[in-house]
Protein backbone atom coordinates (compact mmCIF):
# COMPACT_ATOMS: atom_id res chain seq x y z
CA UNK A 1 0.00 0.00 0.00
CA UNK A 2 1.41 3.33 -0.96
CA UNK A 3 0.81 6.31 1.14
CA UNK A 4 -1.37 8.89 -0.51
CA UNK A 5 0.40 12.20 -0.62
CA UNK A 6 -1.50 15.38 -1.10
CA UNK A 7 0.58 18.29 -2.22
CA UNK A 8 -0.42 21.54 -0.61
CA UNK A 9 0.49 24.81 -2.24
CA UNK A 10 2.61 26.87 0.11
CA UNK A 11 1.01 30.23 0.68
CA UNK A 12 3.44 32.96 -0.30
CA UNK A 13 2.39 36.11 1.53
CA UNK A 14 2.11 39.16 -0.67
CA UNK A 15 2.57 42.70 0.52
CA UNK A 16 -1.06 43.13 1.55
CA UNK A 17 -0.80 40.04 3.72
CA UNK A 18 2.50 41.11 5.18
CA UNK A 19 1.14 44.54 6.01
CA UNK A 20 -1.57 42.98 8.22
CA UNK A 21 -3.68 46.09 7.78
CA UNK A 22 -6.24 44.72 5.25
CA UNK A 23 -6.69 41.59 7.35
CA UNK A 24 -7.06 43.66 10.49
CA UNK A 25 -9.67 45.83 8.83
CA UNK A 26 -11.50 42.75 7.59
CA UNK A 27 -11.51 41.30 11.10
CA UNK A 28 -12.71 44.58 12.53
CA UNK A 29 -15.49 44.48 9.95
CA UNK A 30 -16.61 41.05 11.12
CA UNK A 31 -16.65 41.89 14.81
CA UNK A 32 -18.29 45.24 14.15
CA UNK A 33 -21.00 43.59 12.09
CA UNK A 34 -21.75 41.16 14.91
CA UNK A 35 -21.63 43.96 17.42
CA UNK A 36 -24.01 46.19 15.52
CA UNK A 37 -26.36 43.34 14.72
CA UNK A 38 -26.51 42.07 18.29
CA UNK A 39 -26.80 45.58 19.65
CA UNK A 40 -29.75 46.17 17.34
CA UNK A 41 -31.36 42.94 18.48
CA UNK A 42 -30.75 43.80 22.11
CA UNK A 43 -32.28 47.24 21.78
CA UNK A 44 -35.26 46.09 19.72
CA UNK A 45 -35.76 42.96 21.86
CA UNK A 46 -35.56 40.55 18.90
CA UNK A 47 -34.22 37.07 19.51
CA UNK A 48 -33.11 36.56 15.93
CA UNK A 49 -31.98 38.96 13.30
CA UNK A 50 -33.86 39.42 10.06
CA UNK A 51 -31.52 37.02 8.30
CA UNK A 52 -32.15 34.52 11.08
CA UNK A 53 -28.49 33.64 11.32
CA UNK A 54 -26.93 35.80 13.98
CA UNK A 55 -28.11 34.76 17.37
CA UNK A 56 -26.75 34.98 20.89
CA UNK A 57 -25.44 31.53 21.59
CA UNK A 58 -25.18 31.68 25.37
CA UNK A 59 -28.04 31.16 27.78
CA UNK A 60 -28.57 32.48 31.29
CA UNK A 61 -27.68 29.14 32.83
CA UNK A 62 -29.33 28.79 36.20
CA UNK A 63 -32.44 30.61 34.99
CA UNK A 64 -32.80 28.74 31.73
CA UNK A 65 -31.36 25.30 31.13
CA UNK A 66 -30.33 23.59 27.97
CA UNK A 67 -31.92 20.25 27.18
CA UNK A 68 -29.37 17.44 27.14
CA UNK A 69 -29.39 15.19 24.09
CA UNK A 70 -31.29 11.92 24.61
CA UNK A 71 -28.12 9.85 24.73
CA UNK A 72 -26.42 12.06 27.29
CA UNK A 73 -24.79 10.00 30.03
CA UNK A 74 -25.68 11.69 33.27
CA UNK A 75 -26.50 10.83 36.84
CA UNK A 76 -26.96 7.09 37.33
CA UNK A 77 -30.29 5.63 38.31
CA UNK A 78 -31.44 2.16 39.27
CA UNK A 79 -34.58 0.88 37.60
CA UNK A 80 -37.42 -0.85 39.41
CA UNK A 81 -39.45 -3.97 38.90
CA UNK A 82 -43.21 -3.92 38.49
CA UNK A 83 -43.60 -4.13 42.26
CA UNK A 84 -41.16 -1.24 42.77
CA UNK A 85 -38.33 -3.46 43.98
CA UNK A 86 -34.87 -2.89 42.65
CA UNK A 87 -34.20 -4.66 39.35
CA UNK A 88 -30.53 -5.01 40.15
CA UNK A 89 -29.53 -8.58 41.04
CA UNK A 90 -26.10 -7.61 42.39
CA UNK A 91 -24.24 -9.54 39.71
CA UNK A 92 -21.28 -7.12 39.93
CA UNK A 93 -21.08 -6.88 36.14
CA UNK A 94 -21.12 -3.08 36.29
CA UNK A 95 -18.45 -2.89 38.97
CA UNK A 96 -16.37 -5.42 37.03
CA UNK A 97 -16.73 -3.47 33.81
CA UNK A 98 -16.15 -0.14 35.51
CA UNK A 99 -12.75 1.18 34.42
CA UNK A 100 -12.66 3.65 37.29
CA UNK A 101 -13.68 1.22 40.02
CA UNK A 102 -16.32 3.59 41.36
CA UNK A 103 -19.13 1.10 42.02
CA UNK A 104 -19.29 -0.65 45.36
CA UNK A 105 -21.93 -3.35 45.76
CA UNK A 106 -22.80 -5.57 48.68
CA UNK A 107 -25.09 -8.44 47.79
CA UNK A 108 -27.73 -9.94 50.03
CA UNK A 109 -30.06 -12.91 49.97
CA UNK A 110 -33.65 -12.08 49.10
CA UNK A 111 -36.57 -13.83 50.80
CA UNK A 112 -38.20 -14.41 47.44
CA UNK A 113 -36.49 -17.44 45.87
CA UNK A 114 -37.26 -16.16 42.36
CA UNK A 115 -35.20 -13.06 43.02
CA UNK A 116 -32.53 -14.68 45.20
CA UNK A 117 -29.88 -11.99 45.05
CA UNK A 118 -30.27 -8.25 45.42
CA UNK A 119 -28.02 -5.37 46.40
CA UNK A 120 -27.99 -4.44 50.08
CA UNK A 121 -25.62 -1.61 49.29
CA UNK A 122 -25.06 0.02 45.96
CA UNK A 123 -22.74 3.00 46.08
CA UNK A 124 -21.40 4.99 43.19
CA UNK A 125 -18.69 7.51 43.87
CA UNK A 126 -19.40 10.30 41.44
CA UNK A 127 -16.04 11.88 42.03
CA UNK A 128 -14.37 8.73 40.73
CA UNK A 129 -16.87 7.96 37.97
CA UNK A 130 -15.79 8.91 34.46
CA UNK A 131 -19.30 8.63 32.93
CA UNK A 132 -18.16 6.18 30.27
CA UNK A 133 -21.40 4.18 30.31
CA UNK A 134 -19.68 0.81 30.60
CA UNK A 135 -21.92 -0.09 33.55
CA UNK A 136 -25.06 0.45 31.48
CA UNK A 137 -23.52 -1.62 28.72
CA UNK A 138 -22.58 -4.45 31.08
CA UNK A 139 -25.88 -4.61 32.97
CA UNK A 140 -27.70 -7.83 32.03
CA UNK A 141 -31.08 -6.77 33.40
CA UNK A 142 -31.52 -3.12 32.47
CA UNK A 143 -31.09 -2.13 36.10
CA UNK A 144 -28.51 0.62 35.94
CA UNK A 145 -29.01 3.48 33.53
CA UNK A 146 -27.43 6.85 32.97
CA UNK A 147 -30.30 8.39 31.06
CA UNK A 148 -31.58 10.65 33.82
CA UNK A 149 -30.68 13.69 31.72
CA UNK A 150 -29.10 15.33 34.74
CA UNK A 151 -25.48 16.00 35.30
CA UNK A 152 -23.96 15.33 38.69
CA UNK A 153 -24.36 18.39 40.82
CA UNK A 154 -21.53 19.85 42.84
CA UNK A 155 -21.75 19.17 46.56
CA UNK A 156 -20.05 20.53 49.62
CA UNK A 157 -18.30 17.34 50.71
CA UNK A 158 -16.68 14.34 49.12
CA UNK A 159 -18.84 11.89 51.00
CA UNK A 160 -21.98 13.53 49.59
CA UNK A 161 -20.80 12.62 46.12
CA UNK A 162 -21.00 8.96 47.05
CA UNK A 163 -24.53 8.15 45.92
CA UNK A 164 -26.34 5.35 47.66
CA UNK A 165 -28.96 2.81 46.76
CA UNK A 166 -31.97 4.82 47.95
CA UNK A 167 -31.03 7.91 45.98
CA UNK A 168 -30.33 5.88 42.86
CA UNK A 169 -33.67 4.09 43.19
CA UNK A 170 -35.58 7.32 43.67
CA UNK A 171 -34.40 8.49 40.29
CA UNK A 172 -35.30 5.18 38.66
CA UNK A 173 -38.57 4.19 37.10
CA UNK A 174 -40.09 0.98 35.82
CA UNK A 175 -38.32 -0.73 32.96
CA UNK A 176 -40.21 -2.41 30.14
CA UNK A 177 -37.51 -5.05 29.75
CA UNK A 178 -38.65 -8.43 30.96
CA UNK A 179 -36.81 -9.55 34.05
CA UNK A 180 -34.97 -12.80 33.43
CA UNK A 181 -34.88 -12.69 29.65
CA UNK A 182 -37.29 -13.68 26.93
CA UNK A 183 -38.37 -17.07 28.19
CA UNK A 184 -38.96 -17.65 31.82
Amino acid at each position, binding site marked *: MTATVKKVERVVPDLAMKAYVPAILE*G*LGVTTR*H*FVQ*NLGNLVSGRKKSKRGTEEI*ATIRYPDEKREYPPRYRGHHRLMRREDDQVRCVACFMCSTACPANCIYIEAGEHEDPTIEKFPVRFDIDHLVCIYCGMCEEACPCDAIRMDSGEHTKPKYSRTDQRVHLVDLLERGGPSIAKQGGRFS
Partner: protein
Amino acid sequence: MTTLILYALLKIAGFVLGYVMLTATLLTWIERKQSALAQDRIGPARASIMGLRLGGLLHIPADAIKSFTKEDFIPDTPNPWLFKFAPVIAFIPAFVMFAVIPFGPGDLIISSASFGVLFILAVTGISVYGATLAGWASNSSLSLLGGLRAAAQMISYEVTMGLSLVGIFMVYEDVNLQNVVIRQGSNVLNWGIVTQPLAFFLFLAAVIAETKRGPFDVAEGESELVAGYFTEYSAMRFAMFMLGEFIAIVGVSAVLVTFFLGGWQVPGLEETGGWYTVLQVSAFALKTWFLCWLQLMIRWTLPRFRYDQIMHLGWRILLPLSLLNVLVTGIVLAIIHG
Protein backbone atom coordinates in the same frame (compact mmCIF):
# COMPACT_ATOMS: atom_id res chain seq x y z
CA MET B 1 -6.76 85.57 41.02
CA THR B 2 -9.32 83.64 43.04
CA THR B 3 -11.65 83.43 40.08
CA LEU B 4 -8.79 82.12 37.97
CA ILE B 5 -8.10 79.37 40.48
CA LEU B 6 -11.80 78.59 40.77
CA TYR B 7 -12.08 78.51 36.97
CA ALA B 8 -9.11 76.15 36.73
CA LEU B 9 -10.59 73.91 39.42
CA LEU B 10 -13.92 73.92 37.57
CA LYS B 11 -12.17 72.85 34.37
CA ILE B 12 -10.36 70.06 36.20
CA ALA B 13 -13.54 68.92 37.90
CA GLY B 14 -15.63 69.07 34.74
CA PHE B 15 -13.15 67.58 32.33
CA VAL B 16 -11.03 65.18 34.33
CA LEU B 17 -13.41 64.05 37.07
CA GLY B 18 -16.58 64.48 35.08
CA TYR B 19 -15.81 63.41 31.56
CA VAL B 20 -12.73 61.23 31.93
CA MET B 21 -13.69 59.40 35.12
CA LEU B 22 -17.21 58.80 33.90
CA THR B 23 -15.98 57.44 30.59
CA ALA B 24 -13.37 55.23 32.21
CA THR B 25 -15.90 53.85 34.68
CA LEU B 26 -18.40 53.15 31.95
CA LEU B 27 -15.67 51.55 29.88
CA THR B 28 -15.27 48.82 32.50
CA TRP B 29 -18.83 47.80 31.70
CA ILE B 30 -18.72 48.66 27.99
CA GLU B 31 -15.69 46.49 27.42
CA ARG B 32 -17.48 43.46 28.82
CA LYS B 33 -20.76 44.16 27.07
CA GLN B 34 -19.18 45.12 23.76
CA SER B 35 -16.97 42.05 23.64
CA ALA B 36 -19.98 39.90 24.47
CA LEU B 37 -22.05 41.35 21.65
CA ALA B 38 -19.17 41.07 19.19
CA GLN B 39 -18.83 37.42 20.12
CA ASP B 40 -22.54 36.56 20.16
CA ARG B 41 -22.72 36.33 23.92
CA ILE B 42 -24.91 38.04 26.49
CA GLY B 43 -22.26 39.56 28.71
CA PRO B 44 -22.69 40.76 32.26
CA ALA B 45 -26.30 40.51 33.34
CA ARG B 46 -26.37 39.00 36.81
CA ALA B 47 -26.06 41.97 39.15
CA SER B 48 -29.50 43.23 40.04
CA ILE B 49 -31.27 45.41 42.55
CA MET B 50 -34.72 44.03 43.27
CA GLY B 51 -34.92 42.40 39.86
CA LEU B 52 -33.69 45.51 38.04
CA ARG B 53 -30.69 44.58 35.94
CA LEU B 54 -30.19 47.52 33.56
CA GLY B 55 -28.35 45.28 31.11
CA GLY B 56 -25.55 44.62 33.54
CA LEU B 57 -24.86 48.26 34.28
CA LEU B 58 -25.17 47.48 37.97
CA HIS B 59 -21.98 45.50 37.73
CA ILE B 60 -20.13 48.80 38.05
CA PRO B 61 -21.28 49.52 41.63
CA ALA B 62 -21.02 45.80 42.37
CA ASP B 63 -17.40 45.82 41.27
CA ALA B 64 -16.75 48.92 43.36
CA ILE B 65 -18.22 47.33 46.47
CA LYS B 66 -16.27 44.16 45.84
CA SER B 67 -13.01 46.03 45.33
CA PHE B 68 -13.42 47.95 48.56
CA THR B 69 -14.40 44.98 50.67
CA LYS B 70 -12.05 42.30 49.38
CA GLU B 71 -8.99 41.29 51.37
CA ASP B 72 -6.06 43.51 50.51
CA PHE B 73 -3.47 40.83 50.11
CA ILE B 74 0.20 41.73 50.27
CA PRO B 75 2.59 38.93 49.35
CA ASP B 76 5.72 38.06 51.26
CA THR B 77 7.94 40.58 49.53
CA PRO B 78 11.05 42.52 50.55
CA ASN B 79 9.49 45.66 49.06
CA PRO B 80 6.03 46.03 50.55
CA TRP B 81 6.25 49.80 50.16
CA LEU B 82 6.97 49.56 46.45
CA PHE B 83 4.23 46.98 46.16
CA LYS B 84 1.73 49.44 47.65
CA PHE B 85 3.05 52.36 45.66
CA ALA B 86 3.10 50.71 42.20
CA PRO B 87 -0.66 51.03 41.49
CA VAL B 88 -0.43 54.74 42.29
CA ILE B 89 2.38 55.20 39.77
CA ALA B 90 0.31 53.39 37.18
CA PHE B 91 -2.79 55.43 38.02
CA ILE B 92 -1.55 59.04 38.30
CA PRO B 93 0.22 59.57 34.92
CA ALA B 94 -2.89 58.47 33.07
CA PHE B 95 -4.71 61.37 34.74
CA VAL B 96 -1.94 63.94 34.42
CA MET B 97 -1.94 63.53 30.66
CA PHE B 98 -5.23 65.43 30.42
CA ALA B 99 -3.61 68.61 31.74
CA VAL B 100 -2.36 69.63 28.29
CA ILE B 101 -5.21 68.35 26.12
CA PRO B 102 -7.57 71.06 24.79
CA PHE B 103 -11.17 69.96 25.07
CA GLY B 104 -12.61 73.12 23.68
CA PRO B 105 -11.64 76.39 21.96
CA GLY B 106 -9.86 79.24 23.72
CA ASP B 107 -8.90 78.57 27.31
CA LEU B 108 -10.76 75.25 27.55
CA ILE B 109 -7.51 73.54 28.36
CA ILE B 110 -6.23 72.99 31.86
CA SER B 111 -2.66 74.02 31.22
CA SER B 112 -1.88 75.78 27.99
CA ALA B 113 1.79 74.92 28.23
CA SER B 114 3.92 75.39 25.17
CA PHE B 115 5.64 72.02 25.73
CA GLY B 116 2.37 70.04 25.56
CA VAL B 117 3.54 67.22 23.32
CA LEU B 118 6.74 66.68 25.26
CA PHE B 119 4.71 66.54 28.47
CA ILE B 120 2.53 63.80 27.05
CA LEU B 121 5.54 61.80 25.90
CA ALA B 122 7.16 62.19 29.32
CA VAL B 123 4.07 61.21 31.25
CA THR B 124 3.37 58.09 29.17
CA GLY B 125 6.99 57.17 29.73
CA ILE B 126 6.52 57.33 33.48
CA SER B 127 3.36 55.25 33.49
CA VAL B 128 5.31 52.10 32.67
CA TYR B 129 7.06 52.36 36.02
CA GLY B 130 3.82 51.24 37.64
CA ALA B 131 3.82 47.95 35.78
CA THR B 132 7.54 47.36 36.14
CA LEU B 133 7.66 48.14 39.84
CA ALA B 134 4.54 46.07 40.49
CA GLY B 135 6.18 43.13 38.76
CA TRP B 136 9.40 43.66 40.70
CA ALA B 137 7.82 44.19 44.11
CA SER B 138 5.42 41.24 43.87
CA ASN B 139 8.28 38.83 44.48
CA SER B 140 6.80 36.41 41.97
CA SER B 141 8.42 35.10 38.82
CA LEU B 142 5.25 35.58 36.81
CA SER B 143 4.86 39.17 37.91
CA LEU B 144 8.52 39.89 37.25
CA LEU B 145 8.28 38.53 33.72
CA GLY B 146 5.18 40.62 33.14
CA GLY B 147 6.93 43.73 34.40
CA LEU B 148 9.99 43.08 32.24
CA ARG B 149 7.85 42.61 29.17
CA ALA B 150 6.01 45.84 29.89
CA ALA B 151 9.29 47.76 30.23
CA ALA B 152 10.82 46.32 27.06
CA GLN B 153 7.66 46.93 25.09
CA MET B 154 7.46 50.51 26.32
CA ILE B 155 11.04 51.25 25.29
CA SER B 156 10.47 49.77 21.83
CA TYR B 157 7.29 51.61 21.02
CA GLU B 158 8.04 54.95 22.62
CA VAL B 159 10.54 55.63 19.83
CA THR B 160 7.91 55.09 17.16
CA MET B 161 5.39 57.12 19.14
CA GLY B 162 7.69 60.11 19.34
CA LEU B 163 8.88 59.88 15.72
CA SER B 164 5.37 59.54 14.32
CA LEU B 165 4.46 62.85 15.99
CA VAL B 166 7.44 64.62 14.40
CA GLY B 167 5.52 64.72 11.15
CA ILE B 168 2.65 66.49 12.93
CA PHE B 169 5.00 69.17 14.30
CA MET B 170 6.50 69.64 10.87
CA VAL B 171 3.09 70.13 9.30
CA TYR B 172 1.51 72.33 12.01
CA GLU B 173 4.74 73.91 13.20
CA ASP B 174 3.86 73.94 16.88
CA VAL B 175 4.06 71.72 19.97
CA ASN B 176 1.31 73.45 21.92
CA LEU B 177 -1.70 71.21 21.53
CA GLN B 178 -4.26 74.02 21.43
CA ASN B 179 -2.28 75.56 18.56
CA VAL B 180 -2.10 72.21 16.77
CA VAL B 181 -5.88 71.93 16.95
CA ILE B 182 -6.40 75.48 15.80
CA ARG B 183 -4.01 74.99 12.89
CA GLN B 184 -5.93 71.92 11.80
CA GLY B 185 -8.99 74.08 11.45
CA SER B 186 -12.51 73.11 10.56
CA ASN B 187 -11.57 71.77 7.16
CA VAL B 188 -11.45 67.98 7.36
CA LEU B 189 -8.87 67.86 4.60
CA ASN B 190 -6.46 69.74 6.81
CA TRP B 191 -6.72 67.33 9.75
CA GLY B 192 -3.84 65.16 10.83
CA ILE B 193 -5.39 61.95 9.59
CA VAL B 194 -5.39 63.35 6.04
CA THR B 195 -2.07 65.15 6.10
CA GLN B 196 -0.29 62.43 8.03
CA PRO B 197 -2.19 59.15 7.35
CA LEU B 198 0.81 56.88 7.95
CA ALA B 199 1.62 58.66 11.20
CA PHE B 200 -1.93 58.04 12.39
CA PHE B 201 -1.60 54.26 12.04
CA LEU B 202 1.90 54.23 13.50
CA PHE B 203 0.81 56.33 16.45
CA LEU B 204 -2.31 54.21 16.98
CA ALA B 205 -0.24 51.01 17.07
CA ALA B 206 2.32 52.60 19.36
CA VAL B 207 -0.19 53.92 21.89
CA ILE B 208 -2.04 50.61 22.03
CA ALA B 209 1.28 48.98 22.81
CA GLU B 210 1.94 51.71 25.37
CA THR B 211 -1.34 51.00 27.15
CA LYS B 212 -0.47 47.28 27.08
CA ARG B 213 -3.78 46.27 25.58
CA GLY B 214 -4.55 43.57 23.04
CA PRO B 215 -3.05 42.61 20.69
CA PHE B 216 -0.01 43.92 22.59
CA ASP B 217 -0.99 42.59 26.04
CA VAL B 218 1.83 40.08 26.57
CA ALA B 219 2.65 41.86 29.83
CA GLU B 220 -0.54 40.35 31.22
CA GLY B 221 -0.51 37.26 29.02
CA GLU B 222 -3.09 35.20 30.91
CA SER B 223 -2.19 31.98 29.15
CA GLU B 224 1.45 32.25 30.19
CA LEU B 225 1.76 34.58 33.17
CA VAL B 226 -1.55 34.19 35.06
CA ALA B 227 -2.15 37.93 35.05
CA GLY B 228 1.35 39.28 34.48
CA TYR B 229 2.55 42.12 36.62
CA PHE B 230 -0.64 42.37 38.72
CA THR B 231 -0.91 38.64 39.48
CA GLU B 232 -0.38 39.28 43.19
CA TYR B 233 -2.70 42.25 43.44
CA SER B 234 -6.20 42.13 44.83
CA ALA B 235 -8.96 44.42 46.01
CA MET B 236 -8.59 48.17 45.43
CA ARG B 237 -4.97 47.97 44.31
CA PHE B 238 -6.00 45.68 41.50
CA ALA B 239 -8.91 47.98 40.73
CA MET B 240 -6.48 50.91 40.45
CA PHE B 241 -4.52 49.05 37.79
CA MET B 242 -7.69 48.31 35.89
CA LEU B 243 -9.04 51.82 36.24
CA GLY B 244 -5.65 53.26 35.24
CA GLU B 245 -5.78 51.16 32.11
CA PHE B 246 -9.21 52.49 31.16
CA ILE B 247 -8.23 56.08 31.90
CA ALA B 248 -5.21 55.54 29.66
CA ILE B 249 -7.58 54.43 26.90
CA VAL B 250 -9.49 57.67 27.22
CA GLY B 251 -6.19 59.55 27.38
CA VAL B 252 -4.70 58.11 24.22
CA SER B 253 -8.04 58.53 22.47
CA ALA B 254 -8.03 62.21 23.42
CA VAL B 255 -4.43 62.58 22.20
CA LEU B 256 -5.29 60.87 18.92
CA VAL B 257 -8.30 63.13 18.49
CA THR B 258 -6.19 66.18 19.20
CA PHE B 259 -3.44 65.30 16.76
CA PHE B 260 -5.27 63.57 13.96
CA LEU B 261 -9.01 64.22 14.15
CA GLY B 262 -8.98 67.96 14.55
CA GLY B 263 -9.50 68.02 18.30
CA TRP B 264 -12.64 69.93 19.19
CA GLN B 265 -13.10 71.20 15.66
CA VAL B 266 -16.47 70.63 14.05
CA PRO B 267 -16.21 70.33 10.25
CA GLY B 268 -17.27 73.54 8.59
CA LEU B 269 -17.71 75.47 11.83
CA GLU B 270 -15.33 78.42 11.98
CA GLU B 271 -16.88 80.46 14.79
CA THR B 272 -16.38 79.87 18.49
CA GLY B 273 -18.09 81.04 21.65
CA GLY B 274 -21.49 80.49 23.24
CA TRP B 275 -23.44 77.52 21.89
CA TYR B 276 -20.75 76.93 19.29
CA THR B 277 -18.34 76.13 22.09
CA VAL B 278 -20.79 73.65 23.57
CA LEU B 279 -21.06 72.01 20.17
CA GLN B 280 -17.29 71.88 19.81
CA VAL B 281 -16.77 70.37 23.28
CA SER B 282 -19.41 67.76 22.43
CA ALA B 283 -17.62 67.03 19.16
CA PHE B 284 -14.41 66.42 21.13
CA ALA B 285 -16.28 64.10 23.50
CA LEU B 286 -17.88 62.15 20.66
CA LYS B 287 -14.64 61.77 18.74
CA THR B 288 -12.91 60.50 21.89
CA TRP B 289 -15.69 58.02 22.55
CA PHE B 290 -15.47 56.74 19.01
CA LEU B 291 -11.75 56.11 19.39
CA CYS B 292 -12.35 54.38 22.74
CA TRP B 293 -14.85 52.14 21.01
CA LEU B 294 -12.36 51.48 18.21
CA GLN B 295 -9.63 50.50 20.65
CA LEU B 296 -11.97 48.11 22.43
CA MET B 297 -13.01 46.65 19.10
CA ILE B 298 -9.39 46.15 18.08
CA ARG B 299 -8.69 44.34 21.31
CA TRP B 300 -11.59 41.94 20.83
CA THR B 301 -10.79 41.35 17.17
CA LEU B 302 -7.09 40.60 17.06
CA PRO B 303 -5.31 37.70 18.69
CA ARG B 304 -2.39 38.44 20.95
CA PHE B 305 1.00 38.87 19.27
CA ARG B 306 3.85 36.71 20.29
CA TYR B 307 6.53 38.55 22.22
CA ASP B 308 9.14 38.23 19.44
CA GLN B 309 6.55 39.39 16.92
CA ILE B 310 5.98 42.51 18.99
CA MET B 311 9.67 43.27 19.07
CA HIS B 312 9.98 42.57 15.35
CA LEU B 313 7.06 44.81 14.56
CA GLY B 314 8.30 47.59 16.79
CA TRP B 315 11.94 47.75 15.75
CA ARG B 316 12.00 46.48 12.20
CA ILE B 317 8.74 47.73 10.76
CA LEU B 318 7.23 50.60 12.71
CA LEU B 319 10.49 52.40 13.47
CA PRO B 320 11.76 52.46 9.83
CA LEU B 321 8.29 53.45 8.69
CA SER B 322 8.16 56.37 11.11
CA LEU B 323 11.62 57.51 9.97
CA LEU B 324 10.43 57.23 6.38
CA ASN B 325 7.37 59.26 7.29
CA VAL B 326 9.54 62.07 8.65
CA LEU B 327 11.71 61.98 5.52
CA VAL B 328 8.78 62.05 3.09
CA THR B 329 7.01 64.78 5.08
CA GLY B 330 10.19 66.86 4.98
CA ILE B 331 10.59 66.43 1.22
CA VAL B 332 6.94 67.24 0.56
CA LEU B 333 7.09 70.32 2.82
CA ALA B 334 10.28 71.44 1.13
CA ILE B 335 8.61 71.18 -2.26
CA ILE B 336 5.46 73.04 -1.12
CA HIS B 337 7.25 75.84 0.69
CA GLY B 338 9.81 75.61 -2.06
